[in-house]
């Protein structure tokens, strides 16, 4: 229940059940230390949120996990194998959904791209695409182009495309940061519904502390310059969560206070 310090919380051994693990990972880009000695792990079906002031390397952390960037020192392991390149069952959802979608393909076509990449049989694609679009509530928009969809719908589409990869790990980089408050809450609940039924571990980067507490099993707080894991908050709130009940729970408010205090301290 109590916040645990980084030193205690990060046993750098490979726990058998860990899906994705970092061991003493540091990253230096063009002479600048971005991340230092990060150790953490993500277990199957776990929902971990990452918070921290801007510039503390949250996004870089995700890019390391996705295999888009390789660490300067330390190890990133996925299913106990060292990550050297992107894996087809690790999906990454970008914040700038409008840039991440192919504007010349319809909604169905964008989902198809992921299926083409993993080489799924042509005959099965149509059914899988409509199932995925159904799942994110875009069944009516299969033939629409991204430019014809609202921001919330475009982000749903990107989520559908990532789910097409049948991911074991879903990495999300401030996915709802550019959406209005109402849409954000709806998508938060949809994300929880989708991930509750699957086997997917989620690593969710956000700058919204309440969002992190509402969604996560654990919240990882980073300290900037260079980015380090400062604290890990365990969130023992019952699931399924509810926008009103959960956010009014005493435990939620207590964690919210602790997290805000922490960010206040490190933000300066």
């Amino acid at each position, binding site marked *: 229940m109590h916040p645990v310090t980084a030193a205690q919380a990060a046993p750098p051994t490979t726990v058998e059940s860990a899906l994705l693990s970092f061991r003493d990972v540091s990253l230096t880009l063009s002479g600048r230390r971005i991340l230092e000695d990060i150790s953490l792990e993500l277990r199957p079906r776990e929902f971990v949120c990452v918070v921290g002031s801007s510039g503390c390397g949250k996004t870089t952390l995700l890019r390391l996990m*996705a295999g*888009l960037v390789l660490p300067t020192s330390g190890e990133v392991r996925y299913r106990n194998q060292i990550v050297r390149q992107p894996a087809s069952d690790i999906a990454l959802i*970008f914040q700038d959904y409008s*840039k991440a979608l192919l504007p*010349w393909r319809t909604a169905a076509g964008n989902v198809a*791209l992921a299926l*083409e*990449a*993993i080489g799924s049989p042509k005959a099965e694609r149509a059914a899988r695409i409509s199932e995925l679009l159904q799942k994110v509530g875009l069944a009516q928009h299969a033939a629409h182009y991204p430019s014809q969809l609202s921001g919330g719908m475009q982000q749903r589409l990107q989520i559908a495309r990532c789910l097409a990869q049948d991911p074991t790990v879903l990495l999300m980089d401030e996915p709802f940061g550019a959406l209005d408050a109402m849409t954000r809450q709806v998508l938060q609940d949809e994300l929880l519904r989708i991930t509750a039924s699957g086997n997917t571990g989620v690593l969710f980067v956000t700058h919204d502390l309440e969002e992190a507490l509402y969604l996560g099993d654990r919240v990882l707080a980073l300290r900037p310059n260079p980015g380090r894991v400062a604290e890990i908050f365990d969130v023992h709130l019952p699931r399924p969560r509810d926008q009103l009940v959960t956010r009014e729970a005493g435990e939620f408010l207590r964690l919210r206070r602790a997290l805000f205090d922490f960010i206040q301290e490190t933000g300066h």
Partner: protein
Amino acid sequence: MKWQGLVLPVGAAMLAEGCARAFGIQSDSLASPSQILGAAWGLLRDGALFAMLGQTLLAAFGGLLIGGGAGVVMALVLGLSPTISKLLRLPIEGLRPIPSIAILPVFLMVFGFGYRLEIASVSFACFWPSLIIGQAAISGIEPRLLEVSRVLGLGPWGRVTKIVIPAALPRLFVAFRLAAAVALIVAVTVEIALNPQGMGYELMSAQSSLRPEVMFAILLYIGITGWSVNAALLLAQRRLFGRAGGMHVGMHGGVAGEPP
């Protein structure tokens, strides 16, 4: 609104016609508009126009496809492989400044007179704009899309065919359109300079046989051809790419000439 654009050209033609009739010009270098139109009609009626137009367009489009296509392929290769890009930087920078006309004697020696000479010259000229704009098109691709292709696990071939080419296509088409204008210019120039076929050659023989009305009629047809090719490609560009392609029209349109 369109008729206003015609006021000056038609007015000038009528003025020229008026002057020619009033002063009774007899000249080896000038012709009245009515004589020119008469000659133009003659070329159209006896089919001479289609023969020379066919020769010029065949050479221009043949060269455009070969040179423009090679330029785009080269742009893709250079855009995707930093190593090849480094190796070829010097040769490209060395060859590019050579005016396509300066290479004519070499091509004449290799190919002799005829289509091959003309198509080779047009190809050489079209290769460069297509390469340069093609490179800009490829470096202008949204980097996020390339990351998406990596995260999804697309192979190199899938990346080129499903991401790079479709993303660069609107700008590659602009490259094609500008290269088409170059193709026509170079084809006619090669015909004027030495190749005995097509509109450029007929233009020169009309001039040397002191038939200014035929010369001006051919010039008129060359202008109409250039205008039509550009207008057709602009239309295709708008149809194919809508506003995405249209954005670049204003930027480069002046080079090839805008339709009214």
